[in-house]
């Protein structure tokens, strides 16, 4: 769940000079947090063009609060069904994490019902973790469902993707980690998301994975991210776009890689931060087979390739010439 909850809060800032993506041509990227349900096919195409070969879509708050269990069920189903298919059309391997987000945990009557159906979904293929869960307002209800879902993660052996709050971030991040430890989770199986300069040290020191969301205005900018990479290196650090229904950038991961390259971060570190670490962390679910997307430049969803069928292979969607005013 990210990040700009009110469009009015957005202040326009002077745009920085454009960064070319040329420097990262041929590189592969893994965006471990992006809400494609809220994005268009243009985004998919741009991501594929920029080298994004796989992504994780965490279950989140859709902006409009849900009022019934069926809309939760259909949303989870769409993450393992329709959205996964849509992604495959662009040659991008789609994984997801399933969970009850912190915001909607506050609707306790509904949250109870959601907890009942979660076990139906977390064992599905391509579900690589419980997420995104954690704190928003840090209410007792949020804590209750966070704890229950940590237990679910423990039972299923799945990694956990933790959303850290916007307000009281430092305290909320610390508290999220404390509770995870209290429930006996291995920090190496927990990805703490939306870090910043203030939270990163403790997260890494305690053995958790530190994810950074590159999201304009409200979270990290990628120039700050470069500085963090310079200071902390690449161990257990990853970046994501958390692109969603707000003003966000689905190319945040490749753009950050490009900037890192320009600013002198080594190719090996860039690969870890923008690709490899996310795979290592979430592959602990047993649900990621790198062969499904690693074949350079032509990530094809194997499940779409039956008996020589060609039409629905990933990355072969017909192209529209965007510069033309003719639509045929």
């Amino acid at each position, binding site marked *: 769940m990210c990040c700009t909850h009110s469009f009015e809060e957005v202040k326009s800032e002077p745009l920085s000079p454009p960064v070319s993506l040329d420097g990262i041509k041929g590189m592969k990227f893994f965006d471990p947090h992006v809400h494609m349900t809220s994005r268009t096919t243009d985004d998919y195409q741009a991501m594929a063009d920029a080298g994004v070969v796989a992504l994780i879509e965490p279950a989140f708050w859709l902006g409009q609060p849900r009022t019934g269990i069926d809309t939760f*069920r259909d949303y989870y*189903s769409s993450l*393992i*069904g*329709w959205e*996964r*298919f849509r992604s495959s059309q662009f040659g991008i391997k789609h994984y997801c994490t399933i969970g009850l987000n912190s915001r909607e945990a506050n609707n306790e009557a509904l949250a109870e019902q959601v907890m009942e159906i979660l076990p*139906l*979904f977390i*064992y*599905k*293929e*391509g579900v690589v973790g419980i997420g995104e869960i954690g704190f928003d307002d840090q209410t007792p209800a949020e804590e209750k469902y966070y704890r229950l879902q940590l237990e679910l993660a423990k039972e299923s052996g799945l990694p956990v993707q933790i959303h850290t709050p916007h307000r009281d971030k430092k305290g909320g991040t610390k508290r999220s980690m404390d509770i995870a430890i209290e429930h006996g989770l291995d920090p190496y199986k927990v990805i703490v998301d939306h870090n910043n300069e203030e939270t990163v040290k403790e997260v890494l020191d305690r053995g958790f994975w530190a994810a950074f969301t590159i999201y304009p205005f409200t979270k990290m900018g990628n120039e700050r991210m470069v500085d963090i990479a310079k200071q902390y290196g690449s161990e257990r650090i990853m970046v994501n776009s958390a692109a969603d229904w707000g003003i966000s950038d689905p190319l945040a991961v490749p753009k950050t890689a490009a900037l890192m390259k320009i600013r002198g971060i080594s190719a090996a570190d860039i690969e870890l931060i923008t690709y490899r670490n996310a795979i290592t962390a979430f592959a602990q679910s*047993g649900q990621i087979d790198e062969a499904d997307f690693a074949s350079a430049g032509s990530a094809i969803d*194997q*499940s*779409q390739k*039956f*008996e020589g*069928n060609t*039409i*629905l292979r990933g990355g072969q969607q017909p192209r529209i010439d965007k510069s033309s005013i003719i639509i045929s």
Partner: protein
Amino acid sequence: MFNYKVDEIRSILKAIVQANTTRDVLAWLEEKRALNTSFVLLPRKTGKAIINITAHQSKQIDTIIPGFSVDGWSIDRLGRAYLLLNLDASDQKEYFRVIEALFLAAEIGELVALYSTLPLLAYPEIWVKRCSEGIRSNIGSVLEAIMYHNPYPAQNLDQSAWNQLVLKAFFTDKDINKIIGIDTRANKELAYIISDYIHERWAAKREVNPNLWRLVGKFIDEKLFEDIKRLFEEGNLVDRKAGALAISQSNYQPAIALLTKYPELVTAIENKNLNWDSLSR
């Protein structure tokens, strides 16, 4: 309950599963536990490799359930079919409830397995709605699971649902030759809908799949003959070949007379050098 020799299919599928997994996995498959759990977890046990199947097994299956084939299936898809075959089918209501629940919470791989297993399920008549619903999917592999080498739709769907399947297959560029019953279930209503569709394509100056004429040929009449004439007058070689093949299915005299003007096409059809299969290649 079953409209085919279920014991025979079960033992063939078991032999294929056996040949493509370890003994432990087979034992796991046959353990008693909630179907939902086994069904979801299955690929973690079996992996997803494409199965090896002997030509003999393939032929046996086709003999028992004509048109049905598991060639090219992955082991998890086959394993799931095998699970469903081992489900107790004695209580129709319960049987339906359990399998329908799998459909409702299925991810793509599960949907593919479920739909391609329709011809193996008991009480074929109770899955008609489910099959029609599947045809409404826009997920390519799900559609293929229903359309390709699957005899269930041709045997069970009513005419309008069948026509929907065929139209959807053309709209999504499917391989028409893999649809079981494509010729036997051709009907006049469909031929007219296809004619309208072709006119739309012509108006939009978009390509027309020559295989569409395969479903028109048998029903050529005064109106449809106008379309065929246009193929010969304005079309390219592939169009004329398709037109010739369509006429070869027809008894409409003016059409037959038209075809005699193209002796080389007549000869090609008679020599079997030209057929619908070769046309689409």
